[in-house]
């Protein structure tokens, strides 16, 4: 494994559905350089896609004049990712999705993105800008850790 501490990789994509795939491609390339195993790269790709979709949709309200920012910082044994938008962020984590309630129409079929992010990476934290505009989700995925 190659150590590559240093300046982060920075990406900015327009707030348009589909562009989350550009973030996936960038993140996958960084993780591959760091020596992450393929299955961990898949976890990272899905987590980043969901974070970007939320930033595009809920943070930036699909306003294509706003960008979603992604920073990827390689540490010795982990990759730290921030996905930034210009929205107000979230005040509390949504409840864990319940497939039985969904199947019986008691909760929206949607609402699984943040749950998947938390399930797929080692750390996930949603942070609001102290000045009230802008929010980000910070993800950490470790090199030595497998999800299951």
């Amino acid at each position, binding site marked *: 494994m190659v150590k590559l501490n240093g300046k982060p990789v920075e990406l900015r994509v327009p707030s348009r559905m589909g562009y989350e795939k550009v973030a996936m491609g960038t993140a996958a390339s960084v993780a591959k350089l760091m020596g992450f195993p393929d299955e961990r790269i898949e976890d990272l790709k899905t987590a980043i896609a969901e974070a970007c979709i939320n930033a595009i949709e809920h943070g930036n309200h699909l306003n294509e004049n706003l960008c979603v920012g992604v920073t990827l910082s390689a540490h010795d044994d982990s990759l730290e990712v921030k996905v930034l938008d210009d929205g107000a962020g979230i005040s509390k984590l949504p409840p864990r999705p319940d497939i039985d309630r969904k199947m019986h129409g008691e909760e929206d079929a949607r609402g*699984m993105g943040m749950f998947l992010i938390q399930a797929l990476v080692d750390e996930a934290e949603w942070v609001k800008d102290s000045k009230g505009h802008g929010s980000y989700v910070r993800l950490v995925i470790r090199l030595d850790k497998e999800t299951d």
Partner: protein
Amino acid sequence: MQIETKTSVDHISDGNGERVTVLRFSGDISSGSHDALLGTYQTVNKSQPVLLDFSKVEYINSSGIALVIQMLMEANKNGQKIAAFGLTPHFQKVFTMVGITKYASLYADEAAAKASV
């Protein structure tokens, strides 16, 4: 911007000569896939089992999974059996995480899925 979902509808016979509908998806399964998933599901014969073929799907996100869940809801109401195959190991894990496997079994390939219904 989103890549279109294509769905083709196949009719096959299972081992006992019973008719089975196969919905073969390709492209992305995302928020733009409403018609490709739910629209197509509306057209299938509700008295036959349905197999969902994901082997040509390149990308699935949680909005797409929500549409799969809505399809399972419909099938559940109709008492119709649904099984899926062709998901990558990663998306088998993701489908399991959200609990879909409680309402639809996942199989490695078409033969295994066909044998199950």
